[in-house]
């Protein structure tokens, strides 16, 4: 077994896990799956790349600006493409179409602004993309940091759901009307969740940029694999998303290494299909189920 392949899988898996968590943040209070999420990650990467290389902003400023912008885009999406549909029927599914439409609109607009050329983004000092040799594995300091940060971020998100506002989101997810009867405003929590889920997607774009390059074609691939990670990890379950992200990243890496790179996508979706056929609700049970 090749340890480099393992490292590759973990790095890619981290990105898929982050996309999946951003899906879950929106999904919990709204039961809406935002199909524009991949494009939001892409906008995050492009905005950040431009802010750094064109506008010359310091890393932290570019980072904050990107999160705020992508969060706002996602909030606007909620207002115009999701809220009106849920207002008419709480269990309607027309948001599948409207969020896909938003995805296409973003993709087209971004193509006009940036063009097809990928932008190289350097990691923040003192990290770099130079390969290190860690116990015989070739991996850069930035990639090590990415894997560690991913695990820390998922733990942070889970902690946020232990606050009263977080518990209220889980309450809305379980029984919206019962939440209303306790004085919880699901609309307000929904708007916050879209803003935060959007910002999280933007952040995923920022951290992905040094590895994948910032490119306008980033969206669909991350949407698909992030979606797969969310589904395999049980939708709404962030710990599940983390583990499933790594399962998919590793499957992809080893599929490419052992078979031929041409088959890697097929291998991923065989695994996803196999898991979902055996366990339609994903590997980690009911959405948001918790054990005591």
């Amino acid at each position, binding site marked *: 077994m090749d340890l480099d392949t393992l490292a590759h899988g973990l790095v890619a898996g981290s990105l898929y896990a982050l996309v999946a968590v951003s899906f879950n943040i929106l999904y919990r209070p709204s039961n809406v799956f935002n199909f524009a999420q991949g494009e939001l990650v892409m906008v995050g990467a492009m905005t950040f790349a431009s802010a750094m290389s064109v506008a010359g902003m310091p890393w932290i400023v570019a980072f904050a600006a990107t999160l705020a912008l992508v969060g706002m885009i996602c909030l606007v999406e909620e207002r115009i493409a999701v809220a009106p549909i849920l207002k008419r029927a709480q269990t309607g599914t027309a948001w599948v179409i409207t969020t896909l439409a938003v995805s296409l609109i973003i993709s087209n607009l971004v193509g006009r602004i940036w063009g097809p050329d990928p932008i190289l983004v350097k990691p923040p000092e003192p990290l770099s993309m130079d390969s290190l040799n860690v116990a015989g594995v070739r991996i850069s300091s930035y990639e090590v940091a990415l894997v560690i940060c991913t695990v820390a971020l998922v733990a942070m998100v889970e902690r946020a759901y232990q606050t*009263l506002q977080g518990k209220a989101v889980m309450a809305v997810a*379980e029984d919206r009307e019962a939440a209303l009867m*306790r004085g*919880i405003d699901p609309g307000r929590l929904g708007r916050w969740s879209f803003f935060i889920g959007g910002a999280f997607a933007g952040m995923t774009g920022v951290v992905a940029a040094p590895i994948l390059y910032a490119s306008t074609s980033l969206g669909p691939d991350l949407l698909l694999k992030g979606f797969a990670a969310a589904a395999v990890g049980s939708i709404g379950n962030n710990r599940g998303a983390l583990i499933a992200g790594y399962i998919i990243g590793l499957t992809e890496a080893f599929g490419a290494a052992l078979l031929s790179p041409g088959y890697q996508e097929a291998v991923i979706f065989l695994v996803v299909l196999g898991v979902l056929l055996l366990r339609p609700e994903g590997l980690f049970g009911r959405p948001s189920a918790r054990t005591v």
Partner: protein
Amino acid sequence: MSEAPLLSVRAVDAGYGHVDVLENVSLDVGDRKIVALVGRNGAGKSTLLRTISGLIRPRRGQIAFAGANLAGARPDAIVGAGLLHVAEGRRLFRRQTVDDNLELGRYGLRLTQAEHARRIERIHALFPILREKRGLHAGSLSGGQQQMLAIAQAMMRAPKLLMLDEPSLGLAPVLVDQVLDAIASLRAEGVAILLVEQMVERALEIADDAYVLQNGRIIASGPAREIAAGDALRAAYMGEHGAAARA
């Protein structure tokens, strides 16, 4: 009653979509009173509670609570005004713990740590089982324990008025007594109660006033003792094989 009642419902019509359920319903709940709302299945009791708590918009009429007009107000504003609705079937957050459910009971209230602890303490004194089960999922509790948790959750907010929809539904007889006793003791703490209950006799025993609802209309109202002895009650339950008397 000379001063304005705590809750006053005036000439309310309400329903679902094209279905009309309530017609010209008026009802008062005085401060620190227990008011029973009785009537057979499908009479519209739950619909009335849902209209008062803002889940359904009344088509017509006024709803005044503690001096403010609530008709058409949002549910969270109504809860904020101190009017709590414990729904039929309890509607707890089954996938969250007993403690989390209690904490959600105070959502949106600014409480000091000490005040929060004091309220939990008082609830544990009233329902000791909730301390024992504090870390368990609400869904794993028995029906009686869930009902206690639902009432306790509402108590976290120290409401002025509590609306309880069939709190004894599905409970063993011993537990029915326990829950109804708990309700009576809430009045002693200054909470007014609007009680919908299938155990009609028991409900009328602890109530001050009562209303009888039939086909969406109030057909009788008055002191609970008089309603218990009157004909309207029997008329309202006719065809249900004396379900009222069995309680």
